[in-house]
């Protein structure tokens, strides 16, 4: 379990389980990780932080996001224990 630098001990934190697929899994070099972030962290902020950590090549504008196995809006709030997946452009069919 990794902890992002911005989560200080004095703040309330939430643990978010992040899964990686496709090129993001290549860049993160892992399938999933649990991160502890301040409770008010938005999805946008979460991606920004993880993007810095793993040097993701895709800007957020090119991605969709899923929370707890459903597509979500980038403005949706997340909560402790949520599962979050950043979705690069899909290529099924």
């Amino acid at each position: 379990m990794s902890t992002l630098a911005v989560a200080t001990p004095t703040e309330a934190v939430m643990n978010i389980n992040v899964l990686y697929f496709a090129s993001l899994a290549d860049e993160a070099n892992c399938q999933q990780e649990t991160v502890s972030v301040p409770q008010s962290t938005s999805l946008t902020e979460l991606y920004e932080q993880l993007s810095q950590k793993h040097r993701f090549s895709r800007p957020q504008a090119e991605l969709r996001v899923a929370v707890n196995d459903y597509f979500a809006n980038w403005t949706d709030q997340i909560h402790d224990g949520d599962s979050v997946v950043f979705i690069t452009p899909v290529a099924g069919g």
Partner: protein
Amino acid sequence: MTDNVHGHSMTIKRSVDEVYAIAERDGFALLDIAIDEERLKRTLDDDGCGAFACFEGRVRNHNNATSVERLTYYGYEDLAINQGRAIIDEAKQRFEITNAIAIHRIGALDIGDVAVWVGVVSAHRYPAFDACRWILDTIKADIPVWKQEYYEDDSSKWLSNNG
């Protein structure tokens, strides 16, 4: 390395019977072995339907001018099932159809293998055609499946449906 970080998206968690049960109930599922097209088709049998339209997306031996050896599909199973259910529900509202089922396969596929199967039954023919095409297009746009093509020189790349 690639196999390690993608292992969770090359196989499904559910049993094959569960997959077909979900496909029958919700209209969509992911599968990590060959799609049994006859089984899906039988699920759609309906004496009130005069029309059955279906589409199979198969792995072809080229992409533009480049020769393709094989293709690996990766999927996010739980989101795919939830999103697939929403797609089939919407298709039933948009078109005058009786039923529709689609399955997308993940894992390593060979040339000629069926990657996606869509079947629709309806009383009349045009809604079956229209819904089949719409479901396929929407699967390609929205279902979290990704693919990597492998070439003769063992190189590979991630493909994208939308640029």
